């Protein structure tokens, strides 16, 4: 099992000012799996993803990608590693000043040495995968929330990364669109054979996507296992999370 580890997070901690967001987190991500990191807002889930792509630096601990310690790599080597990792931002982070076509072409031009014709072919193929070929000449401001997510997803997968990090992929979407996006992520994962780490607090999304779930609470790993195992847990905090009760009503701090 050890040789199929793609990403290894070892005792990572991160604080902002005096607020300890992540406390000694250790996680392994295996090739081809869909790992869902679950937890309430503000438990450090997004911070963990940003540490993986070095948008943030850990205070302590190490992160290994394909056995390479990210802490010891040069800026150039980090850029090389990033080429294998896709990141779907919570807001989509589409470039406002560029059309959908330019948004999708941007990472291709930066990473690969492709001809104009090859770039156009790749853009069309990827837009077909997310079902939005018709949006190719639209500007991000003209797209609905669901469409923006699909285009952001298309921009993330267009470089065919080995690992995709999803930061709250369904936030701000209605339940039906949320389910559609989650199913799209799963289908793309199967078609393109990618490894995924999905940070979410959306139960529907997690149920559809997850092979394995890590439950974070107060910056620490609270529970780890298969989605059904976690869902059927007798733990009061988790049961309340799943039944979507307001946690403060049952005294979360005492759980």
């Amino acid at each position, binding site marked *: 099992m050890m040789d199929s580890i793609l990403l290894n997070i070892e005792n990572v901690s991160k604080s902002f000012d005096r607020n300890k967001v992540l406390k000694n987190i250790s996680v392994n991500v295996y090739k081809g799996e869909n790992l869902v990191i679950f937890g309430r807002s503000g438990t450090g889930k997004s911070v963990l993803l940003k540490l993986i792509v070095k948008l943030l630096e850990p205070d302590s601990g190490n992160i290994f990608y394909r056995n390479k310690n990210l802490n010891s790599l040069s800026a150039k080597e980090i*850029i090389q590693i990033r080429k294998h990792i896709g990141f779907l931002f919570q807001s989509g982070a589409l470039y406002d000043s560029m059309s959908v076509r330019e948004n999708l072409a941007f990472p291709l031009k930066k990473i690969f040495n492709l001809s104009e014709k090859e770039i156009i072919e790749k853009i069309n193929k990827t837009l077909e995968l997310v079902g939005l070929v018709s949006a190719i000449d639209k500007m991000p401001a003209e797209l609905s929330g669901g469409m923006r997510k699909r285009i952001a997803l298309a921009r993330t997968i267009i470089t065919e990364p080995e690992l995709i990090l999803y930061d709250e992929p369904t936030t701000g979407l209605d339940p039906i669109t949320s389910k559609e996006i989650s199913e799209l992520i799963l289908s793309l994962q199967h078609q393109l054979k990618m490894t995924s780490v999905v940070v979410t607090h959306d139960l529907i999304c997690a149920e559809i996507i997850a092979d394995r779930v890590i439950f974070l609470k107060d910056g620490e790993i609270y529970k780890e296992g298969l989605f059904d195992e976690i869902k059927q847990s007798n733990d009061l905090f988790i049961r309340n999370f799943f039944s979507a009760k307001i946690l403060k009503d049952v005294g979360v701090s005492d759980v």
Partner: protein
Amino acid sequence: MNLPKIKHSMNLSLTEKLLNFFLLLSGLAIFTIHFFKEMLVPPYEIEETKKQMYDFGLKSLPIVGTMGIIIGFVLALQSYFILEPFGATDFIPASVGISILREFAPILTALLFAGRVSSGIGAEIGSMKVTEQIDAMEVSGTNPFKFLVVTRVIATTFILPLLTIYVIFISLLGSFLALLIEEQMNLIYFFNSVTSFLDLGDISAGLIKTFFFGFIVGIVGAFQGYTTEGGTVGVGRSTTTSVVISSLLILLVDMILVKISMIL
């Protein structure tokens, strides 16, 4: 690049405001050093630089042109009413020409350019920062500093001198129109009168400083945008601060450069 953190709050004491000002200046200095480091190292984003030059230059033409013609017209008219009683209207083209070339065109174009472009850069980069677009660029294997900052600063540095030359011609045209209306002055006489009093020193003194002004407009806007924090409120703050700081720095640098040129 580690930039000093500036504290934003409604209730800052005078000491804290003063501290913020020095933190801002030191941050701007660090940012400028980083700019030169990044500028010299490949890859060079030539396409994006050209696109920004086109945007900043072409789209500024109507506003700076309008300003130029009015300034030229008003300067000539004011001079006419002062010099006409003394019968010295013949000196108007030369005196207006020198004023436009050495001071009015460079400084007014720069201030207008700061209002239009520095704020635009601050707002664009600032909103990209708060909506994670800069992070997205970084994780897609691009150096956002090169793509967003270096390109824009180079564009402003080289486009402002060109705009200033354009304003000089438009302002002189405005002056001529005023004298044509008041004095029925001949175009050839006007042209000869302007050129006979001007020398290379006037042209270089006016134009060299516009490279500095252009650099200030770009670097201040980019710095404010790149250090934006606090969502849309932060973007608004960056936009306003970009114009205020770049305008003040332009005036300050103008004063210093004029003094230096007088010594030289």
